[in-house]
């Protein structure tokens, strides 16, 4: 443990400052410099996050690397940071993804390079702030601030319908989070002047207020996850966003919703969580089964992966509300694994899009003849997306299915249908795009991936396989936190 060293502040502010430095390089004349600073900044951001893992004490569920300073005296708001076994892996995931996004956009983005790179770096720092805030207002500030860079990324570098997608993304997420703000102020009143999340964990609340607060939180987090039926912004946002935007959206921003449930809904509102668990499980299963079927009929690759994200995140929320060890840990593993896999899938689609400028499955076919190396990588990630044993996709889903089996056979049965539909939509898409004869002349022209793309995909492939074969390094850090969270949720807060 590095006592007294503001490590978390460094993890948050280093990428943001690097982002400002990138912005300061100005116009596209200085694009090479902007790219270089962005790369250095993002890699440094990842390196400084590593001590969070190596110095982490997995045997305690109390907050670690804590920093606490008064920030706004008037409202007793503190600059209070700290991580536990739930937050720390997500910070690492975020810090890990940012350099990949920078490298993925290296040659592809030619317009307003400094703004593109700067936005990603600033967003990376902000998201680290979301995962480490222990003060509700601080959390809210980071949470909302993360909307601004993503809004610009979709709107400036996105596809033809980008304006609609960007505004829909922004308003949808804002609707939920504004009610969360009201809930925070309500808790501030009830707790007699505190915005500390850890105080809220101990705060006794009546059932009626727990249910109302749960709904306010649910709107914020469900939109972000996204859960059925508030998922409709996601396909639009993904389709229009540039590749890097899709990667960050799927790999990181969706996790903010899942994290919200674990940090706020479950520990602050245990009774309401138990009361409404049936509804949450039903919504999650609808996402898994129904959205899986919706993914099957998509003609647009990005849309297909977007719907598959919704289905996979359904497993996450399902795992949360089963209230047992396997469920919660499985959901956490699923979040991290989905971070790797969805990032890889969107990058693969990005690779093809850069060459052909189409996302339609029908425009491809026979890509394997022209891009064999790429086809191999894409195969691995497609398998992981359908949950093949040995990949990270399997571990999380399997744990959640086991957990639901303990609760109710039919939950497990419905959840397990994903092993069929997931394989069906992913592999069918793979088959139509990669195999077969080359029909379209444009595909003939496609060149196989270069060193830059191989580097990015290799890193992700190692992560996906490593986690699939040996998930222990991840599960052991969250074990104690998950146990204590479950014990906490089991105690009633009613008086």
């Amino acid at each position, binding site marked *: 443990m590095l006592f007294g060293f503001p490590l978390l502040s460094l993890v948050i502010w280093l990428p943001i400052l690097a982002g400002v430095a990138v912005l300061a390089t*100005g116009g596209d004349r200085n694009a090479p410099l902007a790219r270089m600073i962005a790369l250095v900044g993002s890699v440094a951001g990842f390196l400084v996050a590593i001590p969070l893992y190596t110095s982490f004490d997995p045997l305690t569920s109390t907050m670690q690397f804590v920093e606490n300073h008064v*920030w*706004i*005296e*008037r*409202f007793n708001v503190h600059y209070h940071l700290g991580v536990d076994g739930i937050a720390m892996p997500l910070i690492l995931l975020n810090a890990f993804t940012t350099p990949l996004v920078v490298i993925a956009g290296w040659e592809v983005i030619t317009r*307003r390079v400094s*703004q593109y790179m700067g936005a990603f770096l600033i967003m990376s720092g902000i998201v680290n702030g979301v995962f480490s805030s222990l003060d509700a*207002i601080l959390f*809210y*500030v*980071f949470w*909302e*601030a993360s*909307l*601004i860079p993503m*809004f*610009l990324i979709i*709107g*400036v570098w996105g596809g033809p319908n*980008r*304006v609609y997608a*960007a*505004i829909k993304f*922004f*308003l949808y997420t*804002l*609707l939920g989070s*504004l*009610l969360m*703000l*009201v809930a925070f*102020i*309500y808790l*501030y*009143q009830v707790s007699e002047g505190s915005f500390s999340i850890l105080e809220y964990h101990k705060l006794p609340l009546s059932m009626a207020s727990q249910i109302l607060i749960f709904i306010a939180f649910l709107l914020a987090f469900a939109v972000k996850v996204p859960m059925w039926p508030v998922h409709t912004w996601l396909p639009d946002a993904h389709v229009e966003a540039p590749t890097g935007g899709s990667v960050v959206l799927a790999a990181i921003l969706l996790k903010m919703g899942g994290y919200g449930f674990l940090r706020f809904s479950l520990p602050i509102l245990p009774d309401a969580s138990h009361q409404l668990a049936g509804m949450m499980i039903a919504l999650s299963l609808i996402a898994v089964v129904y959205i899986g079927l919706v993914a099957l009929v998509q003609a647009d690759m990005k849309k297909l992966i977007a719907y598959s994200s919704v289905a996979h995140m359904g497993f996450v929320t399902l795992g949360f509300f089963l209230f047992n060890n396997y469920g919660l840990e499985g959901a956490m593993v699923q979040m991290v694994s989905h971070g790797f896999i969805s990032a890889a899938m969107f990058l693969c689609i990005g690779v093809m899009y850069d060459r052909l400028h189409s996302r339609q499955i029908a425009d491809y076919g026979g890509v394997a003849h022209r891009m064999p190396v790429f086809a191999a990588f894409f195969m691995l990630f497609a398998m992981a997306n359908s949950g093949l044993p040995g990949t990270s996709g399997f571990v999380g889903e399997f744990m959640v299915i086991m957990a639901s089996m303990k609760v109710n056979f039919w939950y497990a049965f419905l959840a397990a249908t994903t092993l069929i539909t997931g394989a069906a939509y992913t592999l069918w898409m793979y088959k139509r795009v990669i195999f077969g004869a080359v029909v379209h002349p444009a595909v003939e022209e496609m060149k196989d991936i270069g060193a830059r793309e191989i580097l990015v995909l290799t890193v992700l492939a190692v992560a996906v396989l490593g986690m699939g074969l040996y998930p222990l390094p991840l599960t052991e850090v969250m074990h104690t936190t998950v146990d204590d969270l479950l014990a906490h949720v089991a105690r009633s807060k009613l008086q």
Partner: protein
Amino acid sequence: MNFMLPNFAPAYPEIFLLVMVCGVLMADLAWGDKKPGTAYLLAQLALFGCMLITFGTLQPDTIHTFSGMFVDDTLADILKMLVYITVSVVLVYSRTYISDRGILSGEFFSLALFATLGMMVMISASHFMTLYLGLELLSLSLYAMVALRRDSAGATEAAIKFFVLGALASGFLLYGMSMIYGATGSLDIGSVTKAIEGGVISRGVLVVGLVFIVAGISFKLSAAPFHMWAPDVYEGASSAVVLFVGSAPKLAAFGFVMRLLVEGLGAMSGDWQGMLIILAITSMVIGNIAAIAQSNIKRMLAYSTISHMGFMLLGLIGANENGYSAAMFYVVVYVLMTMGTFGIIMLLSRAGFEADKLDDYKGLNRRNPWYAFIMLLLMFSMAGIPPTVGIYAKLSVLQAVLNAGYTWLAVLAVLLSLIGVFYYLRIVKLMYFDEPETDAVIAPKGDVRVLLSANGLAILAFGIFPQSLIALCTYAIQHST
């Protein structure tokens, strides 16, 4: 009968300003043609002098003078300082704009200073008559400023609308005051309070008087349904005048509300709370929804002002210090944002070209990323998105509302402000997502460049460190009520 010379000390800033205004007029007559900048410099000098005097005579006590018609307390000092700063910045932003349009003359600056004097009198009033005098001095100067561009049909129409409706509102206010006088036998704020708290007065007369007073106040604040003048005035008047009308007078209006409703009629808070809730809700509904339909940015900002004033009124309904300081913070933040926004509007306007269509903002990020970024900060702040200061303004008011026990009102306010986000986002969309239609160079003068950048960065800086500004407002309220 002895004639006592009153204590002039608390009114030194007002007296100094009055002398300076006359000086500005004379100087402009003498040198205005040869050196058109004279009036501007003198006006800035006058404001700076006022600032020094107010700062020099800063004291923690509350002093009444002129037979109790005038008061000097912490709230007055702080509000006046804010007014000086605001007016001074407004004049800097306006200078190039009005000189391009040939109204860079003594009239503009002397009217602006007279209006400032009116605001100061309003802020320092402790008697209904003083309040009314200050208000009329302010209003009449504003009517004339709106009409200053007399060759423009739009400006003339705006001025007439503003004047007719404003005169009506003043009439309401006077009528309400006369009712209060009839009921309590006094117009002195202290005596009125005592009389009402005494409890022997007929409530019926008081409440009727209160209704008229609240209606008059709503007009001045441009709260719906007394908002009709705002969109026309914002659209018709020149941007420099709109900036003036939309900024400092809101601070004075807040002082006016504090003196009249809180200090004078605080004992009737149970009656005016309900009225303010209705005004706040209608303002937020009308302001936010009507703003969506606008294609003229000044008109859109008029509706945005209406909704902001509605939100500010929410702070007052708690009728406690907590709420008043939240409302004051909201007004200060609002003024900061309005200054920046109109600063940008005037920056983009050139001689013979008004940047008042939304489409004029297309592709600003391509033309000048720095000012686009400042406008982005301003828009997100108006929408209440962190990390800008706007969120704390909303947070303070919402906290006051929940503290007063109106959870439903807080939820409603939040949902209505979500509608508002849409039209602020649209500006960001135009600036960042669209291609520019013109590539006219944006090259402001040095002082505008520095101030506008500072204004924009203040939005961000106060967004990260809001404590000082919040503490200032809390201090002002706590030491005056």
